[in-house]
């Protein structure tokens, strides 16, 4: 990766033209003998297990029920016997469980979503209820049914269909957009039916002529007359839901709270396609497409995998050099999370699995040379370099006054920093300190009252 120019709106142009290097074909990975499905794959509280050990489960059966509006049900991804329900080791949440199912290889399917009437005759509330059973989780961990319900209550007028891929290696979304264009648009139409949105903007990469060509015949036809294409520059992190809403509506940054009052709702293309699968084909969210790539992977592939498949199974199927792996990342090279174990399962939000041979970055001890690149790339107009100086001095109040809470943790500042300072790490640390201070403050207020 070479240095990229920085433009005023912040962010970095990471992908120049991935059309040639993009992997479009999707292979179906064989279901593993044992899946371990975490019950905390969304931003709310963990789902509660509703099966017990030695139960027989069918593929698609609900094994964890949602607990609050920001929680989504979890489905079995294979048919077989539940062998263990144990605390999920890789979650920071103490009451997150994972359900291990031994695959019997028969893939007996039982849909949790009832089929009573055709989609176009159903009302928004019925569709909404079915969406809640499908367990689809959008980017950022917000369940799709919650997004749509909030949007319906806020009477949004625009549905933004987010097909922008701004990071290299993320071919799963691209292949989805090329292969299942109509499904995506039909899923978005269902979303519009639920939310009552009047129009839909399909945001895509302006440099990808093949994706534009895939969408444009549909957008021009009568059926999808409310849809319009919105090509933008693929500048990272403008695929982020809040930033894309800002770019499309040109008003300002939406608040982080998804329940807040805004005029538009952002749905990813994956969620739209999954919604169509769930409501029209009654298939809940139990499998997804994952790109397996990175310097240590000899034959990178897009794989359709069951939720709960361990990462090592996928890596082995792509003939990975395990000895060379220094770092395993779930997600894009900038926005992904580093995994701590090869047996970490694939979850609903895993769009890629990247195996890196070099372990950048480490916390640097070089000092800031105040080049201000972090400030010029920050998409939410922070001054990361000065913020972390406050955080390092534990001046939490000053950091909050400088809008520390607005940070979306995109990683642009760390990416660009010539001194290799891991700014995101410090900003996260600052947010933790701020949380702690606010809890303490709230307790103090309660005691005083």
């Amino acid at each position, binding site marked *: *990766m070479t*240095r*990229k120019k*920085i433009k005023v709106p912040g962010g970095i142009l990471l992908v120049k033209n991935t059309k040639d290097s993009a992997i479009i074909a999707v292979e179906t990975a*064989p279901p593993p*003998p044992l899946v371990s499905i975490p019950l905390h794959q969304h931003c709310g509280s963990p789902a509660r297990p509703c099966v017990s050990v030695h139960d027989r489960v069918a593929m698609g059966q609900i094994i964890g029920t949602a607990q609050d509006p920001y929680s989504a049900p979890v489905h079995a991804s294979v048919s077989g016997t539940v062998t263990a329900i144990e605390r999920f080791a890789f979650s920071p949440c103490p009451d997150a469980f994972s359900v291990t199912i031994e695959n019997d290889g028969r893939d007996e399917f039982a849909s949790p979503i009832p089929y009573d009437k055709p989609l176009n005759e159903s009302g928004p509330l019925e569709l909404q209820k079915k969406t809640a059973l499908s367990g689809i989780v959008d980017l950022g961990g917000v369940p799709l049914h919650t997004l749509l319900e909030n949007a319906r209550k806020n009477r949004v007028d625009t549905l933004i269909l987010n097909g922008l891929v701004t990071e290299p290696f993320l071919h799963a979304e691209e292949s989805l957009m090329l292969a299942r264009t109509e499904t995506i648009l039909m899923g978005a139409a269902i979303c519009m039916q639920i939310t009552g949105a009047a129009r839909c903007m399909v945001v895509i990469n302006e440099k990808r002529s093949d994706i534009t060509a895939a969408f444009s015949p549909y957008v021009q036809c009568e059926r999808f007359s409310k849809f319009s294409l919105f090509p933008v520059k693929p500048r990272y992190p403008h695929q982020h839901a809040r930033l894309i809403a800002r770019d499309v509506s040109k*008003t*300002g*940054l939406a*608040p982080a709270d998804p329940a807040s*009052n*805004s005029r538009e709702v952002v749905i990813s293309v994956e969620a739209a396609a999954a919604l169509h699968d769930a409501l029209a084909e009654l298939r809940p969210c139990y499998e997804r497409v994952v790109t397996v790539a990175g310097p240590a992977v000899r034959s990178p592939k897009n794989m359709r995998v069951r939720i709960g498949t361990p990462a*090592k199974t996928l890596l*082995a*199927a792509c*003939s990975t050099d395990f*000895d060379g*792996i*220094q*770092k395993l*990342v779930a997600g894009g*090279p*900038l*926005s*992904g*999370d*580093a995994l*701590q174990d*090869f*047996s970490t399962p694939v979850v609903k939000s895993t769009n890629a699995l990247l195996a890196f041979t070099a*372990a*950048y*970055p*480490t916390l640097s001890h070089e*000092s800031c*040379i*105040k*080049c*201000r*690149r972090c*400030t010029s790339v920050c998409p*939410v*107009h922070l*001054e990361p370099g000065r913020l972390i100086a406050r955080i390092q001095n*534990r001046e939490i*109040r000053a950091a909050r006054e*400088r809008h520390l809470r*607005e940070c979306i943790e995109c990683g642009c500042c*760390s*990416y*660009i920093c*010539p001194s290799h300072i891991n700014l*995101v*790490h410090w900003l*996260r640390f600052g947010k933790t*300190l701020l949380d702690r*201070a*606010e809890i*303490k*403050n709230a307790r103090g207020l309660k005691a005083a009252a």
Partner: protein
Amino acid sequence: MIAAQPNPESVDDRTTGLLTLSSLPHVHCGAAPAQFMLGILCALVPAAVMAVISTGSTTAFSILTTILAAYATDWVITYLRIRRFPRFDCSACVTGMLLALSCPPHLPVWVAPLGGIFAIAIAKEALGGLGRNFLNPALAGRAFLAISFPHFFSAVETTGAGPLQLTDLLYSLMTGSPAAWIGAVSPAAIIAGAAVLWYLRIIDVLLPLSFILSAFALSCSGMSAGIMDFPATALEALSPFLSSGILFGALFMATDPVTSPWMRSGRLLYGVGCGILTHVFSLWSPPGNALMYAILIMNCTVPVFDAAIVRRSLRTGRRSLQNETAPQTVSANEGMAP
């Protein structure tokens, strides 16, 4: 078909290696501080070449010895401070080069290296090292020399009557005229170097522009106190103005990122402040010294700009947020780790 796939259980023994955990991102653009410093060094080369051409080979010797002295001091001090040799980042070379180019011509060869040693040992390392010094090290070194050896620095070489014709002016822009700072003999070379820095996004235009324009406006208004028509006065004003080294000071010294304000509006005000102080000081002291003290004094005001100017949040522009509840207050030291 199953047999073609590797058995997932058999890879267990190879998957026991330790994995690195870290916050995102997992890639880096590859920039390093040394790139910035090398960029500045390259941008200074035209000015240095013009200085050597116009003042002779002693200047070349002076530049090289100052760079060497600064670099050696950096190594010694860093070793004494942290018992480790510093990483190769050329910052001391930049300081040495800037200092040598900011001295007046025809100095004894030992003077500039002495300033280089002071610049690194006191103005940079003793004030916190790379990125933490609040004074521009090269200018602090020059100030040390100007105070210690005033007879070398106070000899003002006025150019007499400045060129009154535009062609003369253009000629002097290219080849240069004797200046208080040897780096400033050729304005064209300085502007070429600064253009490179601007292209590499190491400096911005705002600060030097506000610096130069405010100083020039003041000197014009001072000279044209109602006696001459403007264009002739402007030309007359320009020549001593350029030979005072203000281009060099504004484009290479005041733009030092460590010792200038963080935000654009702060940099604008900082440039104006530099311009005003330069003009005021040059009424009573040699122009080279006036420029130096103006920038050094403005260096000390940078924390004020940084504390006062905070970047506006993106969200304040949104209309629908007007009735948002105000966040709770947090007291200053609440977040202290136990």
